């Protein structure tokens, strides 16, 4: 009997897949294991202990950086998602016109610009504003994060709107729904999973950012990633592993939560 064609049976597919998974997850597993090291190095395992978790927990600078990260990321992700939703609606719920494709590319383009270029550009502009206004707070960091988060939130929302049947919104309008009611009762409920996905993507990208944050932050405005980067320049202790592991646990928890939230809606 002829076997059904499957790309998996091609030579090399399984080995390459296994290699990729190993590359991705083996280092993470190693990192997690060494977070529980009782010794002081990240090279040799000297028994199991939670001491580095305790150290991290009692380190005020870690706590402070974490709080800053968890302040900037949700605000940036929220504002970016709202802006991205509006942009996605404006570029899909309109009759096609000259320049529309250009506008969409214009919104997506920041994804293609090297982050370092954005960082330098923002640094130049913000330093002028700092001179004029004298304001040195966390607003710059939030503004920068909003800016680079928008295209990430825009992608899934626009993709969903493009495949969403336009006749549903037509039907609602036909049944006496004003444009606002069409959005509230039909577009938004159907778009919700994509908005959630956009928000998550923006949240993770913001939480993770090093390059732009490193350029923009004023003195003492460390986020968790920039703090960790700073620590690496000194001695590396399993405290870093412990912080990363907690980070990992948090993101797994967030992803799981959102997964079930969006599942319930369907």
């Amino acid at each position: 009997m002829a076997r059904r064609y499957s790309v998996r049976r091609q030579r090399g597919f399984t080995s390459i897949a296994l290699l990729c998974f190993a590359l991705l997850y083996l280092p993470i597993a190693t990192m997690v294991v060494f977070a529980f090291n009782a010794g002081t190095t990240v090279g040799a395992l000297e028994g199991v202990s939670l001491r580095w978790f305790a150290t991290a927990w009692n380190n005020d600078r870690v706590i402070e950086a974490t709080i800053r990260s968890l302040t900037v990321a949700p605000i940036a992700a929220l504002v970016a998602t709202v802006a991205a939703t509006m942009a996605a609606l404006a570029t899909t719920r309109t009759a096609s016109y000259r320049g529309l494709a250009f506008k969409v590319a214009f919104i997506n383009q920041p994804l293609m610009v090297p982050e370092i270029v954005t960082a330098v550009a923002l640094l130049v502009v913000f330093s002028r504003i700092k001179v004029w206004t004298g304001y040195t707070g966390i607003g710059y960091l939030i503004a920068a994060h909003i800016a680079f988060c928008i295209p990430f939130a825009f992608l899934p929302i626009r993709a969903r709107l493009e495949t969403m049947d336009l006749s549903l919104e037509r039907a609602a309008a036909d049944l006496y729904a004003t444009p606002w009611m069409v959005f509230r009762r039909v577009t938004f409920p159907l778009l919700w999973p994509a908005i959630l996905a956009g928000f998550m993507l923006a949240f993770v990208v913001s939480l993770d950012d090093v390059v732009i944050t490193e350029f923009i932050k004023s003195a003492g405005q460390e986020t968790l990633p920039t703090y960790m980067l700073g620590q690496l320049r000194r001695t590396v202790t399993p405290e870093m592993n412990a912080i990363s592991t907690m980070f990992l646990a948090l993101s797994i928890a967030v992803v799981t939560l959102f997964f079930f939230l969006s599942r319930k809606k369907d």
Partner: protein
Amino acid sequence: MPEEKSAIEICDVTKLFGDAFKALDGVSLSIRKNEFFTLLGPSGCGKTTLLRLIAGFEYPTAGTIQLHGKDIATLPPYQRPINTVFQNYALFPHMTASQNIGFGLEMLGRPKAEIAARVDEMLRLVRMEGLRHRRTTELSGGQQQRVALARALAPTPKVLLLDEPLSALDYKLRKEMQIELKRLQLETGITFIFVTHDQEEALTMSDRIAVLSGGRVLQVGNPREIYDCPGDRFVADFIGEANFLSGEIIVATKDRAQVRLASGADILARLPDTAPQQGKVTIIVRPEHAEVHADGRPSPLSGTLESIVYFGTDTHLHVRLAHGDRFVVRRQNSPLQDAALVAGATVGVAFDLAAAQILRN
């Protein structure tokens, strides 16, 4: 203005897409109250565009659209007391059947109790009482169709628009829904405007039909008029099957003419006012209005019987006429068979004066 008789009055409506494409070109139509009116034409003829203009999803480039005497051409869809049944139904997937049906009334701000009562009434009307709490994604095609109808009828619109609503259903279900639609129209007394490219559907359901092509209205009339007295060749060809004969008028009287066919034979044909009264003309003969015989009696047309196609209820006889044209005759089957009618036989084709009609050029 006298007592308003028409539900929808379309006056000289033109719709351009971009600068070049004319989807509708000076269309005027008057659709009466409580009428089952069908817009019939091939795809791209402008029938769906016209429906969208009435619904308010598009706005005319020129011309006016009146609903019960009031100009609505520039109103947004949510301000028109007109509802639509969409081709793909467009049911809200995140709502139950009942919520879908109640949506229009809810948007109109009707009290909850009234909405619930009306939804019940609608579910009964479309015979879906048992499925009110189902998500629309869990319904079959025919059931979705019924919910879509109920949803559009629930707010009691002045006009119901139906955009090829039966095209996604299989043959049997489509037949069933045709009867169902007709029943709903009679029971509710609402004006239905039905868009289709299916001529059979149009003939069986409509009070009147408008045949469209290339953004223009070619003919408006009841199904009998459209079928029996098509104005021009396009209408004759699009609705049902037709044989066309070319000839030249020799003598024309008030409503008939003697025409000399290409074969040299003379026949009598009906001559409508709109057709040319002299010169070269085209004549239509429906396949079921002509007969074929092989007994050699004199007949206006003769030729060779090329093929015999059996259809169960009837048989199609394809005749190659002496001067080259093809002519199809449909005869109803009976247990008695004409043994002389075999492929290759020399046959004569004959028809009544009433069966032949001269067309507008």
